[in-house]
């Protein structure tokens, strides 16, 4: 924090914040990236799965990030029927977010962004008309105020930046997945295969995942819908699963987490402020994946912020260009996926079992996710249309 005034301050150095900073700086804006934690990329509250396209659309792939390359995905019904899904070869990866997030912040620094850790933002500076004009932060016990023309809120699921600016950001309980995850060692898993378990006994209103990281390591976690935590907290359900399925596992890491499986906020901009990533609720409502979509929103916001600086217009009416771009690129699709989510995560165990029994008869090479949805939504043309449009748009 060498300067007293910046063009753009980004709050939060996750993938969305770093991409926003990179693109703001690329566009010529003097940019500061603030992170409350002492380390960028740690702790990792993520299963670290990302598709090949989702990753390489926004950054040049560095092999150091990749812990395993995923070739197969298996869906598991409540009655334990295993349903392998047809996939293409370059499906995706389990990455190491500790290195990945760190590298993204480093790329930002390379673009001229000033990066500062241990910088906890606790409020915003505002002009008399309510426009955001900077941040208040606590840096190693010292209270500082730093002015900027634009603030980008990239402060994750726990985002408060948007609220301070007057935006409605609270997530509904039915749109929050309550998650627990272990990174475990010493288990026998196929490094190219990801597993998803569905149903009341594994993860009510969500799913349980086993994502291999190579070397007999895996991220094993689950998300329970906020409305359905009555059967036990996420950690208890996960401990039960591990004991039954991988009693030999050593638990190296335990993390909690919240995933907002919501539609993107109605408003993600106001005068002098843009929200990106989890803070704007850009997570894919079905998969819960937010790395790629967070990076996309960060990129779009960074670009618009730089343009706004160049034009000298930081008003909401200019910054709304970001929200329009997001909506076109991904937001509309998320609304479709949200409608589908509202149905599929409410299926009963019997309905899931009967779906599995049907789709298992489709030859595996034709058993795509789309085919599975088609089977499920045979008599529901509106949802079928949502899925077709969403898959075409992705």
């Amino acid at each position, binding site marked *: 924090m060498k300067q007293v005034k910046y063009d753009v301050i980004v709050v939060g150095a996750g993938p969305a914040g770093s991409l926003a900073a990179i693109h703001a700086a690329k566009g010529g804006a003097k940019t500061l990236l603030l992170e*409350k*934690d*002492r380390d960028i990329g740690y702790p990792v*509250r993520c299963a670290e799965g990302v598709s090949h396209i989702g990753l390489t659309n926004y950054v040049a792939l560095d092999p150091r990030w990749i812990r395993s390359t995923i070739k197969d995905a298996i869906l598991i019904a409540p009655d334990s029927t295993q349903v392998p899904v047809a996939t293409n070869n370059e499906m995706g990866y389990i990455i190491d977010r500790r290195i990945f997030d760190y590298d993204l912040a480093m790329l930002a620094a390379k673009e001229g962004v000033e990066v500062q850790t*241990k910088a*906890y933002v*606790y409020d915003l500076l505002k002009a008399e008309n309510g426009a955001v004009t900077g941040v208040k932060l*606590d840096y190693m016990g010292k209270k500082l105020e730093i002015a900027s023309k634009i603030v980008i809120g990239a402060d*994750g*699921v*726990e*985002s*408060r930046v948007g*609220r301070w600016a007057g935006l409605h950001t*609270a*997530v509904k*309980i039915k749109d*929050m997945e*309550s*998650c*627990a995850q272990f990174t475990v060692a010493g288990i026998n898993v196929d490094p190219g295969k990801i597993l998803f378990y569905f149903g009341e006994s594994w993860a009510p209103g969500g799913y349980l995942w086993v994502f291999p990281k190579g070397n007999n390591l895996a991220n094993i976690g689950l998300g*329970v819908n*906020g409305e359905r*935590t009555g059967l036990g*907290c*996420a*950690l*208890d359900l996960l401990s039960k699963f591990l004991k039954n399925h991988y009693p030999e596992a050593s638990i190296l890491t*335990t*993390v*909690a*987490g*919240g995933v*907002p499986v919501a539609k993107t906020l109605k408003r993600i901009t106001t005068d002098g402020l843009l929200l990106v990533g989890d803070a704007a609720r850009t997570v894919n409502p079905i998969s819960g994946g937010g790395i790629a979509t967070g990076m996309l929103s960060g990129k779009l916001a960074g670009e618009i912020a730089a343009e706004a600086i160049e034009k000298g217009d930081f008003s909401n009416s200019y910054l709304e260009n970001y929200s329009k771009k997001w909506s076109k690129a991904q937001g509309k699709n998320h609304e479709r996926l949200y409608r589908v989510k509202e149905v599929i995560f409410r299926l009963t165990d019997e309905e899931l079992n009967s779906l599995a029994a049907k789709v298992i008869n489709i030859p595996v090479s034709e058993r795509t996710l789309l085919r599975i949805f088609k089977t499920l939504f045979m008599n529901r043309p509106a949802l079928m249309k949502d899925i077709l449009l969403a898959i075409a748009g992705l």
Partner: protein
Amino acid sequence: MIQIDDNRCDLCGACVGICPADAIAMSELKLRIDPDTCINCDLCVIVCPFNALEAEHEASKV
């Protein structure tokens, strides 16, 4: 009043995201709930993956 069990809390932020009253603050080291802002909706208690929060309402304080 919401009681926080710091030993169980993982500072994940799920409760902060769900709180409709903006009553919860989370720094790198600690979670804090402002009892004056809290509206006792218990959503944070419901969403916590680690059971680190507990509601202590007047009625239950016999």
